[in-house]
């Protein structure tokens, strides 16, 4: 492991579209954030949001298509500056329906116990924790840009 006097301000990683790879990627990203002095509460909030983004890629983008390069089916780039974190997540799977981001409304909880929601929280969490979200699709690549206010998330 290379030791830096100052932790790097950028992060880049790629991996296959599997739940196990998502776990590893989240662990590495959190370690990078933490070593850069990001408060634990903000590290947790970013991990919660990115877990949903990456799980969506695994479960939806590549649900019916196979990655053209399986070893780097999903890529994550992140940069930290002035209390802000910018993240880009890219994949080459199926585009989002209608090329638009889901609204991410919280599912109803005032229902009978047997009808309580077991899903549908993902986009709500992503929207709740990020300050900016932008989806684009170009030349077979899906790209999601996210911005996080680390100072606010640390509170």
């Amino acid at each position, binding site marked *: 492991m290379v030791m830096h006097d100052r932790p790097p301000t950028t992060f880049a990683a790629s991996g296959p579209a599997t739940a196990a790879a998502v776990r590893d990627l989240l662990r590495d990203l959190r370690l990078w954030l933490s070593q850069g002095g990001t408060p634990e509460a903000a590290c947790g909030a970013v991990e919660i949001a990115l*877990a949903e983004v990456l*799980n969506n890629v695994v479960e939806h983008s590549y649900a019916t298509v196979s990655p053209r390069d399986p070893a780097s089916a999903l890529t994550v780039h992140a940069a930290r500056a002035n209390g802000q974190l910018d993240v880009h997540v890219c994949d080459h799977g199926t585009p989002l329906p209608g090329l638009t981001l889901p609204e991410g409304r*919280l599912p109803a909880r005032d229902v009978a116990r047997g009808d309580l929601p077991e899903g549908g929280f993902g986009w709500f969490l992503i929207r709740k924790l990020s300050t900016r979200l932008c989806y684009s699709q170009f030349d077979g690549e899906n790209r999601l840009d996210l911005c996080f206010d680390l100072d606010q998330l640390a509170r």
Partner: protein
Amino acid sequence: MNLTSSPANGATIITVNEARIDASVAIQFKDAMRAHAGCGDGDVVLDLGQVTFVDSSGLGAIVGSMKYLDTSRRLHLAALTPDVDKVFRLTRMDSIFEIHDDTRAFLARAAG
């Protein structure tokens, strides 16, 4: 998925001996919960003290485990770590469960 369970004051305490309940283990978690909660009676207390991270699949698996129980049995949660607590609060699913600081707090209340 490593879960252990023990009876306590008419309830069943199920301890999750894992750091994460996420998409990669959500199904195994639900299966293990069924095996440990069984078809007995009495409330179930899920001790999450060792769990540092739950994603929405893990949250869904916990809700699914509650729905599997007889309606007379409640599912309590105990010892939520900070990031797990955050997921429950943000999704407002904290209002669905009775949440205790730890299993001792549950037992003290059950005895009282």
